[in-house]
């Protein structure tokens, strides 16, 4: 009998996690719904490569997306092609850090569209375009400096 009482004490000591799980599941569902809407429309499959330089994401990175139709997205927001230069100019005129811009373009895109965008960036004050590429599965960069950057990401910038 004393045993059964202690068993009851054990039940009380264990917190009831069911409401927490409910809340977390709801949060998960909310995020699953909102994330595609945040990136609304921008879909691009970057090309794959092997000898790539790691570029860990840093606050203040500027990313130009080019989707399979050749539409531009500045930091995931759709931008009219003719507005790109003025918008990029505004960002890079006041920017004192590296004049680097990340370009995430669709792999099957005609190169004319990419070169066109790079040309606009060059005229807007961007000096370096980092073409976002995915590591081909099962490969590793053969360049020593890439491996060093990869092992300690904080040393990247």
């Amino acid at each position, binding site marked *: 009998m004393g045993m059964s009482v202690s*068993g009851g004490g*054990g039940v009380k000591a264990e917190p009831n996690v069911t409401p927490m799980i409910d809340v977390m599941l709801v949060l998960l569902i909310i995020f699953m719904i909102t994330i595609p809407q945040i990136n609304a429309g921008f879909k691009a499959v970057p090309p794959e*490569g092997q000898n790539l330089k790691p570029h*860990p994401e840093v606050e203040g990175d500027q990313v130009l997306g080019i989707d399979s139709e050749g539409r531009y997205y500045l930091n995931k927001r759709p931008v009219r092609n003719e507005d790109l230069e003025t918008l990029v100019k505004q960002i890079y005129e006041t920017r004192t850090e590296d004049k680097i811009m990340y370009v995430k373009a669709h792999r099957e895109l*005609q*190169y004319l569209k*990419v070169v066109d965008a*790079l040309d606009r960036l060059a005229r807007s004050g961007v000096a*370096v375009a980092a*073409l976002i590429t995915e590591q081909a599965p099962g490969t590793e960069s053969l360049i020593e400096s890439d491996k060093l950057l990869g092992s300690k990401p904080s040393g990247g910038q």
Partner: protein
Amino acid sequence: MSMSADSGGSNLSNDMNVTPMIDVLLVLLIIFMMIIPMSRKAIDTQLPDPNPQPQNSQVNPDQIVLEILPDDKYAINKEPVEKAALLARLKTIYDPRPEKIIFVKGDTMVAYHTVIFAMDQARGAGVKVIGIPPK
């Protein structure tokens, strides 16, 4: 009374202990949140100077221009190179060269990923700086 003890005991065993599972899932979630922004990779390219100096317009005879032509054809300084031989050819060029600069000029009709492939091969052959020639 024995009933109540029994039912209490059976309740206990019925309730699955999910706390370790949640712990593991939370840790996995945090690991993925850390890894995804860290794993971005790219190829750096130098864009052309929008206001070129007049003396720069003279073509440097020593520069290497890799052209990507339609139908998966490649040419280094106008000399055609097979796709399979590209890496070896670039290596023989860049191994003795002190300046590891290449200009990658893609035909406007080719697919973007073939240009990235060429840049990738160039980096693999030891090229440090990839330049995009002005249009």
